[in-house]
């Protein structure tokens, strides 16, 4: 069996019209996307099909229809592909009586690494758990158990890392370090797929997102680009200006402007075209003798994008 590789330049993960149903219940329908190196966030409300999709990518369930390809090969029942995959499933899936060191070492042995001890030490160090390496898993905090699972998943330095709700239970400091770790792994050319319901975390982790709603793909790609495609959703622009009241009539007269609110020196405009607004604003300010201090859009967050995508279904 050949070592899994993306040397041909193809996608690391590719779902082709993947569907999965359980009896009469359709969990995921006609899902197609491809993942390449870097960090991608998988988002969706409860019941959107995230776990089903992740399980299919991990080869833990068979598609009812379509194909799930990893490194150009079907994943289902091809255990050699797991040499290149690291998986952190959701929930507490650990042997409580093992120590961190023995748990991670066991995973190194299951991957057939020639020096499982050294690989385990490196992975434990990556997740900042070396001082606790001899502690039993049952005595660890939830965040520490999550990091242990991550160590077990990266012990063989996988080319594809799948993380299902990896930051559950971590404190803010641990989350910050974990985000940095995942970003570094992604920057090093590893394909990382992170499922999380905490949008702020995904926003910091991943620029690429996949949004599942009702078992279907609602959006994919860079979330800023997705936001730009939401043409029917006016965007809010905050302007700090010396003469806000004098500037407001000019702005409301623009065809793309939906509403303008003035609050002291601040002016909040809702526009269907940020580009047209940005073009007109300096001219209007000059005409009114106003000084612009700050111009920024305020609803560019991933949460805004997510709410919009979920709400329109």
């Amino acid at each position, binding site marked *: 069996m050949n070592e899994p590789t993306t040397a041909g330049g193809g996608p690391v993960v590719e779902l082709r019209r993947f569907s999965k149903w359980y009896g009469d219940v359709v969990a995921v329908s006609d899902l197609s996307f491809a993942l390449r190196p870097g960090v991608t966030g998988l988002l969706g409300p409860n019941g959107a099909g995230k776990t089903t999709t992740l399980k299919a990518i991990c080869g833990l369930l068979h598609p009812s229809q379509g194909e799930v390809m990893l490194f150009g090969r079907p994943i289902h029942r091809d255990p050699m592909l797991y040499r290149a995959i690291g998986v952190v499933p959701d929930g507490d899936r650990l042997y409580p009586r093992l120590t961190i060191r023995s748990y991670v070492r066991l995973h190194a042995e299951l991957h057939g690494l020639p020096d499982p001890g050294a690989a385990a030490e490196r992975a434990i160090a990556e997740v900042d758990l070396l001082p606790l390496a001899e502690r039993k898993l049952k005595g660890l905090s939830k965040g520490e158990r999550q990091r242990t699972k991550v160590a077990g998943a990266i012990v063989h330095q996988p080319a594809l890392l799948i993380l299902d709700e990896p930051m559950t239970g971590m404190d803010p400091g641990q989350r910050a370090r974990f985000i*940095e770790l995942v970003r570094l792994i992604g920057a090093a050319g590893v394909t990382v797929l992170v499922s999380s319901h905490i949008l702020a975390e995904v926003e910091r982790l991943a620029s690429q997102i996949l949004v599942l709603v009702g078992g279907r793909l609602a959006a994919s790609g860079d979330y800023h680009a997705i936001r730009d495609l939401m043409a029917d959703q006016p965007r809010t622009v905050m302007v700090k200006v010396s003469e806000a009241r004098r500037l407001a009539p000019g702005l409301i007269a623009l065809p793309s402007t939906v509403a303008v609110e003035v609050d002291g020196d601040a002016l909040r405009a809702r526009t269907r075209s940020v580009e047209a607004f940005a073009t007109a604003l300096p001219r209007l300010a000059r005409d009114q003798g106003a000084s612009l201090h700050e111009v920024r859009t305020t609803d560019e967050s991933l949460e805004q994008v997510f709410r919009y995508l979920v709400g329109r279904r």
Partner: protein
Amino acid sequence: MSQAPPTTPTGTIYDRGYRHYEGPREGRWRRVRAIVVASVRRALGLKRNWKTKIIPFGLLVLAFGPVFAFIGIRVLVGEAVGEFLGYGRYLRIVAGLLLLFAATAGPELLCPDRRQNVLALIFTRPVTRTDYLLAKLAALLLVVGLIAVVPLLVLFLGNTFTAESAATYLRENLGDLGRILLAGVVLTVFYSVVALAAASLTDRRAMATVGLLGVFLASSALANILFFTTRFEGRRWFALLSLGGAPGRFVDWLFGDGFDQGTLAQQAGLTGPVYLTEMAVVVALAGALLTWRILRLRP
């Protein structure tokens, strides 16, 4: 989140070790061995607290203790102390321990993996369900074989080296050595496969243990009731209903000890090969059930 400064060379990322590992890998045997070792440790309670060691080590003491005690006395007193129980009789006693040991160790190997939801972790490694099944079976065969074979081998060696002439004892009793190995292997396979099959049906250890012991006891009781309360030509075959009776009867036949007077086995008059065939059929059915249950495991 602090961003790396633009001047930071990208090579520093690779230096931290995130490049995909494409070096050599050990073969399938290494992966199976990792599960076997972890499972043997778990079955014996090694590297765990003392409570988990009570049952396995208690049964080991019961199996080995009399043998070592006898050999010690033989060393001190010599052949004057006479024969120990005899290999067959001792193995019949050990068979009871084997059932208890397999009924506790088998569920210990399979049930927690499902109960603690670790199957997803195992099956997202390069481990097939067949690897998993073989590793669990190998682990249980090892620990059950430890009781089924090793005490009698130690007893045989003890008898040999405490005899007046070791060479003479060995020459005259070499057949016993073969019988010890054959009976030990047969009982080990029988109890291990049946115990794992029972464990594959539930994720609760206690339920698997009690269920297995219950089936063995109930089948023996049923066989006796049916045999002794009916009067027709073919009732002797009711003896085969007793799952718990077959190993001991096979051992009695193999070592030529004969069945106890008045028992079902003695009155039924079936021979060792019949009981061996019965055990083979049970192992085949239990093995098929075990394989089916493991292959359809869904993490």
